[in-house]
């Protein structure tokens, strides 16, 4: 949160309290603003929050621990399918949400460890290739596990997944307050996801400023030196994979419940790359970067899609480029501009690994002592 506050242009450094309230205000007001443009925009915001969670989790693996993971979406898939299998008519099982969520997280973490073990000795490009393969393996499993025993229902995916139900309160139902005032379920999901994202930020921030976060950073900067000061790099890598995967798994479970339908095509390699792009675009290794990157890159293509068709029609009288093609084109363009103008991301802040409070206290003491001399 502090990093996010500091990232607010102009205000962040001058008045952190005001910047903090501004962020909270925007976060709360966002769906109301989006509603003005149509309900699909609130839906897009809901997805943006899920992407934020994914970006936060991936940032933990790539940004903090320095392990380039190109198959991150596999954990999202594990979470989503866990939810889908345990709360849908497919098997006829309908477990409560609060039971499936930790299960989805646990399965994803397990998948993270399964991926972690064989790649312990790999770095950089080699690691990227193996994780990419892992992501594809998971997707292909989902695609083909419908024969001889139908587990995942193959390419058709799983339908009619139970919505999120918080102690009897069904988030998928609009709340009717009066004749002409109802709270749309998209709003309910938005605020629920917002809480989930806020919780993720809190957890990840705590991990970052701890002996675990420092061990990850040490491993990322110099693995040999990290070993030489007694960091058990094997355990720390597995921990990074497992915890990163946990966030992916939770996001996946939320996705499954929100969408009501999962199929293997939601978990393609392009999705992994999209999430990684969000992390890189925002600024690797800091929480604010992941949040902003996810927000911008989840919204930007939708805005372009909305603008591109009418714009082309007025300019050329017909649609020259399909919005979907344009999306990839403009995303790539955004990335190239990014690399040229701000090579370390939109928010290139250096992440902190010790408490500001402790630091300033000790620095003040040092200054006093030197002044006394």
């Amino acid at each position, binding site marked *: 949160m502090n990093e996010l506050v500091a990232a607010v242009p102009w205000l962040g450094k001058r008045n952190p309290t005001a910047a903090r309230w501004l962020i909270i205000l925007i976060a709360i007001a966002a769906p109301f603003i989006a509603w003005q443009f149509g309900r699909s925009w609130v839906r897009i915001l809901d997805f943006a929050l899920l992407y934020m969670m994914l970006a936060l989790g991936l940032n933990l693996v790539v940004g903090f621990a320095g392990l380039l993971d190109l198959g991150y979406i596999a954990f999202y898939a594990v979470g989503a399918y866990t939810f889908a299998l345990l709360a849908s008519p497919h098997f006829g099982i309908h477990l409560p949400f609060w039971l499936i969520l930790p299960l989805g997280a646990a399965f994803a973490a397990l998948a993270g460890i399964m991926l972690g073990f064989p790649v312990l000795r790999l770095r950089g490009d080699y690691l990227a290739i193996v994780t990419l393969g892992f992501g594809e393996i998971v997707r292909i499993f989902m695609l083909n596990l419908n024969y001889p025993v139908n587990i995942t229902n193959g390419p058709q995916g799983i339908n009619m997944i139970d919505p999120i139900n918080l102690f009897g309160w069904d988030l998928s139902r609009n709340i009717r307050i009066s004749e002409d005032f109802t709270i749309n379920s998209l709003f309910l999901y938005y605020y629920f996801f917002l809480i989930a994202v806020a919780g993720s930020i809190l957890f990840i921030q*705590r991990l970052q400023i701890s002996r675990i976060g420092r061990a990850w*950073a040490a491993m990322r900067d*110099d693995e040999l030196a990290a070993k*030489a*000061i*007694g960091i058990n790099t094997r355990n720390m890598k597995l921990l990074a994979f497992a915890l990163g995967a946990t966030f992916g798994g939770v996001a996946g479970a939320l996705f499954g419940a929100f969408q009501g339908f999962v199929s293997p095509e939601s978990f393609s390699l392009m999705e992994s790359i999209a999430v990684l792009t969000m992390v890189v675009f925002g600024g690797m290794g800091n929480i604010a970067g992941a949040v902003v990157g996810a927000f911008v890159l989840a919204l930007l293509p939708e805005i372009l899609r909305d603008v591109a068709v009418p714009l082309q029609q007025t300019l050329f009288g017909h649609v020259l480029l399909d919005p979907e093609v344009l999306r990839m084109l403009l995303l790539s363009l955004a990335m190239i501009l990014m690399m040229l103008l701000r090579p370390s991301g939109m928010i290139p802040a250096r992440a902190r690994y010790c*408490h500001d409070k*402790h630091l300033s206290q000790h*620095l003040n003491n040092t200054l006093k002592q030197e002044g006394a001399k």
Partner: protein
Amino acid sequence: MITLLEARNIGKRFGGLQALSDVSLTIRKGEVYGLIGPNGAGKTTFFNVLTGAYTPDGGEFVFNGSLLPTGKPHKVVGRGIARTFQNIRLFRDLTALENVMAGHHIRTKAGVWGVLTQNRFTREEERLTTERAFELLRYVGIQRFADVVSKNLSYGDQRRLEIARALATEPQLLALDEPAAGMNATETGQLKQLIQQIRHDGITVMLIEHDVKLVMGLCDRVAVLDFGKKIAEDVPAVVQKDDAVIAAYLGGGKHAH
């Protein structure tokens, strides 16, 4: 004198190169022990084998009366051996303070649960880690730069920071790999004082160094390696006059006798 570390017949081969053959030496508690020799003599290899970065082909280390695990760096550090590197290896994107705090990792215990819940134990441990890191920065004299990212520190300060980080692991034996390399005379003088202070505070120091003046002035005993073999081990004054050592350094080899 109590023996702190005993190396018994350590051997290490890289393909056709016998980097270490049958090296045995003893380091006593509280001394400064120098390891010298011409380039390529196997000094750094010895450090790497000792600290678990390499697994030796033969031989064993006895530290504080029990066998040292080989090939497991974090366990060696846990037993109380810390090292620095010939070419400085700091965590470049961390500040000086964070580098030292990272060095404290093995002496702290907080797990994921403690960190996520920020329970009292974890908070207290974190506070102590910061405090201890600051003390160490003060100890090596760079507390002013606590909040400076380590890659931006001056060369001499980076060397000091690396020593502070090694000290944060609370070692009994501190192994320094050419700490004075690239330093000017003033910096070397300050380094000498620092090493003397470390020894004074009860930590045994093992030192690889090319600066003969520093070695002779600082070390209680010196071992000389040449082509992976120990050719001498004694107090500096005696080693200096040793024929084999002179031959090794002047390039005469065995045939010069």
